């Protein structure tokens, strides 16, 4: 069964490209537009990996990540995507429970490679 990836990002342009690339790489995808929706969709769809943008309306990525980890979602792979690049943010992301952290602009090839690595490690 193909792994399911939930993409949580409020920028439609990046979502479009991500969905395209991930589907072409053999993954199933779903999309959430803000932090609250991301939490709801995780409950509903039970994805294997969450691509989480840090800056979203209603709940930011760190909050979502922290909430998920606190509510028992320990097996879910979480990759944080961010437009800022400060070291302190990377440290924070990893501290709140992200498995990986990628800075925009990133290469989709690299993203797919990272996603594959994380999902394979689990399997």
């Amino acid at each position, binding site marked *: 069964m193909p792994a399911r990836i939930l993409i949580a990002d409020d920028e439609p342009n990046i979502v479009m490209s991500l969905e395209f690339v991930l589907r072409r790489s053999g993954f199933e995808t779903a999309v959430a537009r803000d932090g609250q929706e991301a939490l709801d969709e995780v409950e509903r769809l039970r994805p294997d990996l969450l691509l989480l943008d840090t800056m979203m309306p209603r709940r*930011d990525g760190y909050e979502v990540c922290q909430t998920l980890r606190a509510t028992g979602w320990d097996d879910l792979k979480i990759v944080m995507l961010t437009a800022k690049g400060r070291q302190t943010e990377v440290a924070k992301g990893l*501290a709140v429970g992200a498995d990986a952290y990628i800075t925009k602009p990133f290469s989709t090839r690299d993203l797919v490679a990272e996603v594959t690595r994380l999902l394979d490690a689990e399997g």
Partner: protein
Amino acid sequence: MTPTRSRDRWDAGMAIGGVVAYVVLAVAGLVVLLLATAGPEHRAAITTALRAQALAVAVVSALAVAGLVVLLARTIGGPVRRARRLADETRLVGEVNPDHRLDAEGAGNLAPLARAVNDLAEQRQAAQREIAEQIASARHEVEQERNRLAALMAQLTAAVIVCNREGRILLYNAAARTLAGDETMIGLGRSVFGVVDRALVTHALDRLVGSREQVLVASTLHGQRLLRVHLTLVHDPHHDETPAGFVLVLEDLTRRHRATTRRDAVLRDLTEKTRASLGSIRAATESVLDYPDLSAEERSRFLRVVHEETAALGQRVESWVDDWTREVADDEVLGEVAGPDLLDLLALELGRRSFTVTTTPPPDELWLRVDSNAVVLALAHLGGRLRESTGTTDLSIELHRSGPHGQLDLRWRGSPPHPAAFGRWLAEPLEGAGVANAREVAERAGGEIWCGALDGATAYLRVLLPASEAPTRVDSHVTDDLASRPEFYDFDLFDIRLPAPDWQDRRLDELAFTVFDTETTGLDPSGGDRIVSIAGTRIVNGRLLRQERFERLVDPRRGVPVASTAIHGISSDMVTGQPTLEEVLPAFARFAEDTVLVGHNVSFDLRFLEPAERAAGVSLGQPVLDTLLLDAVAHPAYTDHSLEGIAERLGVSVVGRHTALGDALLTAEVFLALVVLLQGRGITTLGEAVAASRATFEARVDRSLYRR
């Protein structure tokens, strides 16, 4: 002594005369009584007897009259005389000798007056003593106030210079001195236009119509520093139209300016390169969109362009982020705080808000660049919210180094707050921080803030901040092993005028002097000896300003003989590579500008300076005084006019001889003492001192030594 003796004789004479007078009067009275009471026969007999002895009668009568006169004189004249004497003595007490007291006993019946005068004299003396004490105490208070002001000024981090209306510096502090950099430019009595452009100050003064304060952006004469200069007029309380002077507060904007310039450069670079990249991308994408009939290969080419340009843009953004993190380091709201200090501040504030706090300081040195007030307020606020939601009152605060960061934790037993709630707290406005909320405080410092759980039992609130470095200490030139109190002010200079064209009439105690000394390779300038060290110090308004000094080692461009090194301690290695005299002279000339040069056996030093003056295009044209000659004027009877000899004679302590600076300072102290002595001989102006020096010089035997 003599007046008293003659007065005593006079008194004795008077006393004898009085006795005679009494006796004669008594006899005459007896005769008159007999004549009056005797019967007619006896009367005739007495009259006949008297007539027979007419001469005797005449003499006795004369004596009687004289006696009466004497008696009168004694009774009346005595007191008059005494009164006159008392008057003289009183005048003596009043005008000449306040300690003298009238002799009440010898004043006879004028004794009460004498005693009254004495009492008045006592009162007067007491009153004068009191006045003198009050003046002394008032003077002491003023002195203390001035000292306090000086100490205050010295401690200010802002650079302050107070000038009189002609721009002569009356007061400056250590910060101003550090700012000016070049010690030849800033000093009491010096023109402030050596530090700030004259044109700008004049312009500012022109613009001061109506308002009292003015802000300028100015530059120093050396053009290397960018200063913001605040200028305020000081008004003379008696003449409201003409200002007595002005106050300058200087801010060094150089760093900030440099930072802004750097930031502008980065922005400019970013926008230009971004524009260029966008241009390429746009062109490529439009080609693909507008021409659907492109071959696959052509389309690929355009898309590769887009790919390349976007990758390049991405890299540029990365480097700009790095630059921006460095810019945060120049933000002047932030300051370096030592880790333990920040913890202590936090503990203090939390304690005030009734938390029980335990502190664990970082194991090694850790500095953070933060707005410490804002960080403490933010964390205290979050702590308060924490207490409300979890009831926690015991906090442990710790600071650790985590890679390039400092990790500041508030820890407690319990669980972390819900992320959503914490997110809300971060957005709440803080009182008194000047920054809106806790999230912004962290952002401003270039850090992050979040909560988590260490394990099941302990939770934390963490602030992760970039670690910084210990700040560089502000270099303080003020610490001076010679001066106990830096002399940075002289309010008497408020009234100083620019030197009159004619130096001759200026008073020695008002002029400014540069006292200097040189060390050389030997005694013969025309035989190849050269200067190896030159030093000077300043005397302004009768005070030796020890920390306004000039001190340079000079490369003589030749070897330094061991014999001369033995005297002044300067060896060849010490001077090789130092500036030459031609290079040092212009700076020395600036240092000595507008002053009279003073030295000991100064013509010796001047002979070494002359050739270099020509080569450097500098002319030390000011008047010169020689302490050796001045001592010859003040103490013509002595033969030892060496510096040590004079110093010992005048009671000046000799410390640190045979360095140019040490000798210059000693010469300066000797000079000050000589000025006082010369005043006692009626020599008060420069012209008089020069004339007296010349006269002594010409009278000296060893003329050959002083040929100039």
